[in-house]
């Protein structure tokens, strides 16, 4: 069980990580999600022991790792550009970690064959690294990382360099391989789709701290900040004002809406409040137990598996919906929301 406590790190005298708290349990795949440059790779390097944090603790099973050098930690790391050894072939690359563990030749052979089979590259053992395609290199890199049976495996945007279709295939393979081996894993990416497919838990990294942490479903559906909502590309957001009477007023030229402000939001009168409208039901006509927004269908885009419908709320703000059914353009709609579908943040 890995635990990071208040880990801080500076790069070139500029603060990068400002108190990271993270834990990874047995058999868990944690996804570190965040924009480029947010320090995700740095966190991996700190855990691996390739860098030293300025402050904070990294513990494995309650044991402080700060004096343990990288080569003794037994944490696997799969690099963004694979970092395969060019002077070794596929077999030797995968066997490298096993050689360092001083295993016998037969033991190494068995293990390498097993790993090659897992990644589906059994016939590639004698190949030179330079002869491999991107996807093949990625698989060898993965095999090399899991071969020495590390206690934890970290993957740094492993699918970044690949094209879309390849990414999809490998994503699913990754999930099954990681699951099979049962090794806890930290997966770093800026692509939310990868995160959703793979992760048991997602940790959102922004401005040097973990801003939100939880099961993918919850994190996606309950963003706790405007930044998070924007990061996920959720733009069904309206901006309103605190009325001072525990409610938020959203004003349009043609209409005005008032929503009750939840108690956990501390704000003053006049403060700008953002409301994220989750899901939304536009199949009903009446607005009895719900809050209704009125809008007009602006675009109706067929995506194959669903329709993407863009609705202009009060002719001002465009919301995006997904539906099996098509909605003709310019149709007027009423979209209903329950109170639990509304998420407020500053």
């Amino acid at each position: 069980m890995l635990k990071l406590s208040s880990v801080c790190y500076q790069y070139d005298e500029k603060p990068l990580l400002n108190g990271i708290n993270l834990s990874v349990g047995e058999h868990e795949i944690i996804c570190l999600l965040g924009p480029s440059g947010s320090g995700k790779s740095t966190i991996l390097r700190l855990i691996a022991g390739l860098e030293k944090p300025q402050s904070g603790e990294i513990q494995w099973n309650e044991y402080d790792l700060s004096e343990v050098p990288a080569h003794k930690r037994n944490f696997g790391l799969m690099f963004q550009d694979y970092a395969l050894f060019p002077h070794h072939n596929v077999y030797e690359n995968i066997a490298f970690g096993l050689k360092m563990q001083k295993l016998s030749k037969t033991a190494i052979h068995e293990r390498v064959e097993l790993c090659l089979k897992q990644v589906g590259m059994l016939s590639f053992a004698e190949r030179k690294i330079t002869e491999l395609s991107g996807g093949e290199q990625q698989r060898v890199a993965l095999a090399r990382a899991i071969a020495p049976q590390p206690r934890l495996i970290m993957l740094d945007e492993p699918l970044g360099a690949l094209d879309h279709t390849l990414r999809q295939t490998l994503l699913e393979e990754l999930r099954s391989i990681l699951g099979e081996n049962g090794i806890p894993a930290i997966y770093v990416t800026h692509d939310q789709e990868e995160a959703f497919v793979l992760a048991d838990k997602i940790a959102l990294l922004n401005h040097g701290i973990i801003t939100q942490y939880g099961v993918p479903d919850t994190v996606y559906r309950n963003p706790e900040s405007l930044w998070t909502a924007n990061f996920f590309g959720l733009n069904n957001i309206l901006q309103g004002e605190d009325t001072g009477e525990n409610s938020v007023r959203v004003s349009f030229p043609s209409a005005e809406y008032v929503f009750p402000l939840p108690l956990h939001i501390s704000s003053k009168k006049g403060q700008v409040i953002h409301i994220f409208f989750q899901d939304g039901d536009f199949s009903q006509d009446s607005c009895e137990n719900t809050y209704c927004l009125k809008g007009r269908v602006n675009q109706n885009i067929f995506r194959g598996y669903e329709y993407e419908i863009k609705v202009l709320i009060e002719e001002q703000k465009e919301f995006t919906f997904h539906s099996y059914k098509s909605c003709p353009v310019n149709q007027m709609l009423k979209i209903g929301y329950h109170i639990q579908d509304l998420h407020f943040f500053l």
Partner: protein
Amino acid sequence: MRKYFNKNHLLGSLFFLIPLIFLIELYFFPLFSIFRSAFRYLADEITINWSNIGHVFWFTFWQAIISTILTLIAGFPTAWIFSRFNFPGKKIFNALFTIPFILPTVVTAAAFNALLGPKGFINMIWMSVSGSSSPIVQVMNTIWIILLAHVFYNTSVVLRVIGNSWTQIDSKLEDAAKTLGASPLKVFSRVVLPQLKPSILSACLLIFLFDFTSYGVVFLLGGPKFRTIEVEIYYQALQMLNLPLAGILSIFQIIITIAVTLIDKRLSHIILLNRAPKIFGENLRKPELRWEKIVVFIILGLQFIFLISPILALFLRSMYVFPSESSRTTIASGWTTVYYQQLFVNARNSIFFVPPIKAILNSLSIAIAASGISLIISLFIVVGENRFPWTGKLESIFMIPIGTSAVTLGLGYLLYFGRDIQKIWLIPLAHSLIALPFVIRSIKPAIFNIPNSLRQSASILGASPVQVFLKIDFPIIFRGLINGFIFAFTISLGEFGATSFITRPDRPTIPIAIYRFLGQPGLMNYGQAMAMASILMTFCLTMIVIVDQKE
């Protein structure tokens, strides 16, 4: 139309004719004289002292091997810190560490003398401090000074060749190895070293070749006891007057040089695909941990002391008289310019017939003449090659002289020119031949960067070929011409090997003068040697700075 074509054809031939004649007269014919003399010697079955030759051969070989190994060991740590760390003054250090490589051999000899010789700084300071009258450092005329000087010269090859290759090795590979359980030692031996092997081999071959063909250092610092093949050629030719034997040795030298060059070419075919880091300088970082800073400081410091102290010693020695020395002569002790002043004086028992300053003037005029000739010849070659497609590959034959040592050249002149050896035009011509390949290399990139369309548009606008050259080519290649001239000038100033064969007693060049001064006893001679060597060194350093300005 046909007439026009023929006229151009002729013009093209003329462009190449002159350089070709130059090359044949000054290189191939002398070379053939060596072969002819040697074969005639062998054919006459005069008994050759093969064991002596074997002895010389063996010495040349093992001192080159040991020098190479020592150079590798000495330069490796510095190559490491240059490839992995960024530190203040890195560029300056880089330039400083390259200086030894470009110094003429006489300057190096004088510099080491000034530092480690019996009258050198270390000994003089020791003697005045401890009061003893025998020097503590006695490396002159031993194998150690030769090895030391070789390491001094060739360290920059290690820095450039191996250092360059090392920066290309992605440090992420080292990180990957660490996460796979490799200790720092294993990371080096299993990941870094295998990728460095080609460049290490390449550097070693180059350094071996330099040390194998070493002449000036062995001759001037080792003394008569140590004979490499080149030195033996000199002795056989000029002291034993056994020209044919010298010829045989020359041939051996040429064969070895070709063999090593071929091996090097073979090895460079083994290309190990290193991943170049995505961003240049990605592998470099400031030393952060305390031990890193200490190590970098120590390595840099030691390297600096080793490479710069001889040079400093030379400068300082030429301007300082120790009290113990002053007591035996009429010169006051302390800082002085008396040695420099003496250069202008034609002393009665001087080993020259003229004041030494004349040697400086000789060298300068020879250098100007040689550079001019070199420049013109190379222009002919490069211009001719560029315009007329069938002359393309001919340029390579002008590069061949690089493969033969200056000593061999000198011997060839001795054999071929016979009585004309004392003629005044021979030395400038010899120097211009030696400098030719380097001048061609300086001009060539510049002239080939000129697109033909530029010339063609000028022609269409009415410019004659001469005008095209003057108005289009010339301004563009001007910088290349300057560099080429400076290169040739520096080479000519410092040339010792060939010149030692064809020099006249009344027309010394600077290197010859230094050599003569060093060989004579007496404080004044010693001091003047230091002074002249300092002057020569200053010339060379200035030239290099001028060339580097353009970079």
